[in-house]
């Protein structure tokens, strides 16, 4: 457990960061958009105009209208409803799976980079091995062994996404570990885990945040691929990735099926991106010392 003094120091650091973040207008806009998306996702069951699987085969695919703002798909289902429900899945998968990959990747990469030498070599070869495993087969086997469930989805996605993160963090840590403040921490006799967690990781947050904002969209799209294998969201429920995939297949005939889910995804990603940049700037310890 942390001592009181440390906790206080931590809070003030975060408060500083928050203060800087609030001054960044784009980041604030991004945060607002994201918050709206999350709020919509949470409220979806109560605000949607139709049931997500309500069909109207007579109507079929129709463009945006007063009854259906985003139009309908080929089974006559309301696209607005489906996009809202899809957002729930995509946001949850995007954040949860990214969190898994973030946690594992950062700790693993930092440890390997800091310890260096033989340990590093062994740890990175392990990453290489995981990289090389055929993902499709890996997922199929996971499903056979553990059945289909949402936890498995995070594991499957996290299992591949943390690898690149680990490599990036390792590279950063290796270049940091001989800087003065790390040397100082070592001289003061701090434990290795403490140095990694409290000194190294905060200093590599910049690239980590940037890469994280890149991972989330990737994860949302991988989810669409996993649906193909039968893991992930089961029809008639849908996700943004799946909706976009379906929309892309008929982009000339029913463009709205592609446009609206894509807009939802893009808006979220842009917001994330701006928020990420803002966070990166706000958390930049060295810049803060100016």
């Amino acid at each position, binding site marked *: 457990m942390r001592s009181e003094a440390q906790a206080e120091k931590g809070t003030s650091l975060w408060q500083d960061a928050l203060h800087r973040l609030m001054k960044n207008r784009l980041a604030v806009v991004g945060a607002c958009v994201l918050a709206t998306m999350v709020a919509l996702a949470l409220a979806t069951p109560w605000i949607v105009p139709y049931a997500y*699987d309500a*069909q109207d*085969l*007579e109507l*079929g695919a129709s463009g945006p209208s007063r009854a259906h703002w985003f139009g309908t798909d*080929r*089974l006559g289902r309301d696209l607005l409803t489906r996009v809202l429900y899809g957002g729930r899945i995509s946001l949850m998968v995007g954040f949860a799976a990214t969190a898994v990959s973030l946690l594992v990747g950062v700790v693993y990469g930092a440890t390997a980079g800091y310890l260096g030498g033989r340990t590093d070599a062994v740890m990175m070869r392990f990453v290489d091995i995981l990289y090389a495993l055929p993902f*499709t087969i890996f997922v*199929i086997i996971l*499903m*056979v062994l553990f059945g*289909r469930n949402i936890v498995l989805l995070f594991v499957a996605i996290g299992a591949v996404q943390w690898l690149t993160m680990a490599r990036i963090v390792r590279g950063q840590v290796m270049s940091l570990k001989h800087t003065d403040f790390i040397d100082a921490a070592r001289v003061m006799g701090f434990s290795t885990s403490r140095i990694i967690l409290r000194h190294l990781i905060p200093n590599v947050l910049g690239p980590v945040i940037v890469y994280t904002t890149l991972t989330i969209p990737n994860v949302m799209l991988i989810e669409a691929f996993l*649906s*193909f*294998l*039968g893991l992930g969201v*089961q*029809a*008639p429920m849908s996700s943004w990735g799946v909706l976009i995939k*379906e929309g892309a*297949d*008929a982009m*000339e*005939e*029913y463009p709205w099926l592609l446009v609206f889910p894509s807009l939802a995804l893009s808006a979220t990603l842009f917001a994330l991106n701006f928020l990420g940049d803002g966070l990166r700037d706000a958390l930049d310890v060295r810049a803060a010392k100016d």
Partner: protein
Amino acid sequence: MRKLAGWGIGALALGCVLTACAQKDEQALRVGNGAEPQGLDPHTVTGVPEHRILGTLFEGLTGVDAGTLEPIPAAAESWRVSEDGTVYVFTLRETARWSNGDPVTAEDFAYAWRRILTPELASEYAYMLHCMKNARAFNEGELDDFSQVGVAVLDERTLQVTLENPTPYFLAMQIHYTWFPVHRPTIEKFGRMDERNTKWTRPGNLVGNGAFVLKRWVPNNIIEVVRNGQYWDADHVRLNRILFYPIDDRLTEERSFRTGRLDLTESAPIAKVPVYQRDQPDLIHIDPYLGTYFYRVNVTRPPLDDPRVRRAFAMAVDREAITTKVLTGGQAPAGAFTVPDTAGYTSDAQIGYDVTEARRLLAEAGYPNGEGMRPIELLYNTSEDHKLIAEAIQRMWKKALGVDVSLVNQDWKVYLASQNNLDYDICRAGWIGDFVDPINFLECFTTGNGNNRTGWSSPEYDAHIAAARRTVDVKARHDLFQQAERLLLDAAPVIPIYYYTRVYFRSTAIKGWRSNLLGYISFKDLYFEEGGP
């Protein structure tokens, strides 16, 4: 510097586009052919894409008329059939030649059939030949002596075939690649007779007796065949070359067709069907196809072990809505398993859309309004179309029966494994006829048949099918099929959904085309109008 390079590339690109347009061979047919073929050895392949290519490279004893599917002379110029329909004597064409000039002999056919039936070759489609006397025993290793199999070389140009049972579709079956002859010296130049994967099927090596010869084969890219000058009917062949492109993405295929890179496609994306029908109806074609899209029901799992429940599910499917609203490709709602008018047979028994009766049956089985029934899983292999149909049917079952159905999709191999192990409740399936005869459909559901996969078994049904096999008289045979199919639909281990159609694009410049139930293409009859587009 970079800018300059950019312009250079641009100019080069433009140049290539222009020359590509100018160089088009007037009698070159470019075909979208679905997947990359598994190979070009007629004895080890199993798919449809292979069928089209091999049909240009080899020729069986008889061919079929592309319009009527009636047998016509091919490598054999004539044949005689014995009274009881079990012995065929073929006379080979004197002018039939291999592409290297060797004459095609009766021995070549006997050799080919021996090869495909050799257990060590492990040909997956060898069962097509099991209608020949003792062929199955030889194929399964119970018989070592090939001379006891029902094929005899009477002389160089005379071949006698003895069948187990009278087989009315025997001649029509000769267009299937399993019956094609192979050139012995070529096979044995590159390996043993019973060896798979040798290099004899490579361009330059492959010797065939078809209207075309293999010129080029780049896996996943292109297969090119060119006119075979040695072919006995070479004067009749007007195409100079055929280019087969393995395009497994239907959207890519349609775009290729639209920009004139293909003259003929394998399929058409569903969403494009209404568009073409409205704007360019002369390019899109919808042919009837000998196949049924259906759901298998696992009869070993309660509550689906109750035929009333199964019938209730079958009767709650609004097939009309699926074919006209979801698919829109001219498919017909299926009320029976065998495609109507298969060799003159149409099932009298039909199972149709009847919600009232479906609800009554379900209540009788103890599940009024679906109460007390566990959620049922509907399995399909991943595909956009299967998903749409499953979603629509899920909704129908919910609305009509009050039954909760959850959808499960699996990738192809897992899906097959689930079916084989009866590890499903209800699953999507399709059956495409190998030849035009009801037996090809109905024998699937005999006890122990590998294609049954429902756990359903009826000794009475088996007896009808076995009797039909031995029956020559068409009327009596059809009566047996009628009884069998009625049993099948009453027990409902299958829920027929719709009869397939073949939807594809074809350039108007292609002449000599005739459509048929099997999707069989007689390439040697096709040509482009000279001076045409």
